[in-house]
């Protein structure tokens, strides 16, 4: 059976060239980068080389890159680290409703610590209006965090405009660029952000490797205390193979950026033809200003988890923001914040393409997906519209 992996926002396969670069650092070059002898200095050298590769992908300085263990850690580090470092200047933080759980739950932690958090609304395409950022700012605001692009709907946010507003008001600005780094060009100096989160497994690097860009001279409170690794800002013996892998993956992403973007963009446009063959399918997110390999839909009258199961049985792997497919049994807050009715949000399905997908993969999906929809619609009590006699009442699971 054909296997079509269309869930690149979940994770990417490791590039074989990245794997090769990592291999020696598991066995032969196993040293601790802090050790004085050659084994240590070789590991140290490998880490610094990787730091340069990540800096060069993002147009930043190597000294501004702090390695972490994940995108989630980078996001936690940025929010907590800056809010705490500046708490004498104010205790107000602004985030958007498009954020990943690692931002939202860090914001909730700050609320418990006595901070006030503003959650910015978005429009129907999931775009944060820079004017709403301006209006949300108070004298107490010390930090703003808005994602570069939502992995759920692919919309790219106006980061440069928001960064300009933040800089003018002397507020620190962080962006979660986990979904974008390595997939679209990132020029930190041009974007004008103070902090930026990234994760290696989103660009064919290993899991367990992330980084936080912290602008030179910016004070940040560590998340992990201990030794002097990462200039004392992130303690713990470095995961040398993972960091080496992240560096090599960054190097490859930089040199192959244009061809990868062209490839996944073309396949994505082909995938969008699904809307022509099936009725009542709606694209979610921004129609143009979105990640090149990202196609997200809401399919009316059926539910996302059931689609995922039938697709998986055909060897097609995708994602959904429906309540039933989430562990929390709640529809995606991102879709709801864009004003989608929750019944429609139940029909969420997200295809994210990668460099190894082929035209044949898309053709297979275009042949199989309408059948999955048809089959589930035959089972569904809805069809011509929403609403049937007798429905309603309280949700059984509510939180």
């Amino acid at each position, binding site marked *: 059976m054909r296997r079509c992996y269309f869930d690149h926002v979940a994770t990417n396969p490791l590039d074989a060239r990245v794997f090769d670069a990592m291999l020696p650092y598991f066995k032969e070059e196993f040293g601790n980068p802090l050790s004085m002898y050659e084994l240590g200095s070789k590991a140290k050298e490998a880490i610094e080389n990787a730091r340069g590769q990540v800096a060069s992908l993002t147009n930043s300085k190597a000294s501004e890159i702090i390695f972490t263990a994940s995108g989630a850690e980078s996001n936690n580090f940025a929010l907590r680290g800056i809010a705490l470092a500046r708490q004498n200047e104010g205790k107000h933080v602004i985030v958007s409703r498009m954020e990943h759980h690692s931002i939202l739950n860090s914001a909730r932690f700050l609320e418990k610590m006595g901070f006030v958090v503003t959650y910015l609304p978005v429009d129907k395409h999931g775009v944060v209006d820079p004017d709403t950022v301006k209006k949300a700012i108070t004298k107490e605001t010390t930090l703003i965090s808005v994602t570069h692009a939502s992995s759920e709907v692919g919309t790219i946010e106006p980061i440069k405009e928001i960064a300009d507003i933040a800089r003018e008001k002397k507020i620190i600005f962080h962006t979660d660029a986990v979904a974008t780094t390595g997939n679209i060009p990132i020029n930190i100096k041009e974007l004008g952000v103070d902090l930026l989160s990234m994760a290696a497994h989103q660009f064919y690097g290993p899991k367990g490797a992330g980084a936080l860009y912290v602008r030179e001279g910016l004070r940040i409170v560590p998340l992990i205390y201990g030794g002097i690794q990462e200039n004392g800002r992130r303690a713990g013996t470095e995961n040398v193979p993972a960091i080496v892998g992240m560096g090599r993956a960054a190097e490859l992403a930089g040199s192959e950026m244009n061809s990868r973007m062209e490839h996944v963009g073309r396949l994505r446009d082909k995938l969008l033809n699904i809307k022509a063959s099936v009725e009542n399918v709606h694209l979610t997110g921004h129609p143009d200003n979105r990640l090149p390999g990202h196609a997200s839909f809401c399919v009316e009258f059926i*539910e996302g988890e*059931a689609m995922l199961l*039938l697709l998986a049985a055909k060897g097609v792997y995708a994602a959904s923001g429906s309540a*039933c497919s989430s562990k929390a*049994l709640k529809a995606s807050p991102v879709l709801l914040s864009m004003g989608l009715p929750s019944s429609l949000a139940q029909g969420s399905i997200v295809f994210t393409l990668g460099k190894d997908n082929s035209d044949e993969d898309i053709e297979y999906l275009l042949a199989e997906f309408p059948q999955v929809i048809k089959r589930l619609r035959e*089972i569904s009590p809805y069809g011509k519209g*929403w609403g049937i006699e007798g*429905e309603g009442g309280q949700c059984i*699971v509510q939180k």
Partner: protein
Amino acid sequence: MYSAKVMDHFSNPRNVGDMPDADGVGTEGNPTCGDVMQIFIKVKDGRIVDIKFKTFGCGAAIAVSSMITEMAKGKTLDEALTISKESVANELEGLPPQKMHCSNLGADALKKAIEDYKSKNK
């Protein structure tokens, strides 16, 4: 995450469809929560002689609907009323804990269909 029995009933659901001349119809759930089940019954001499369902929902919800139609078919109304959420889940060789309540609406929908039949045939 699902048992083989759940996957079987989800992939090949039994008794799917409408029943324009149903003697009783029961609907349970709300699309904003995720799952809606509709059960149609045909009753003869106090016995469920035919049963169909339509369901909007996840794999578990569809499997539950399919299973309950198999369990209820041929039973007297009193016997059918004894079918519980737990007995449906047991016949399906278990449901994931988080799906036990939200997607396990079959027993309630069946009960409503029987009540609907009874109220029309007083």
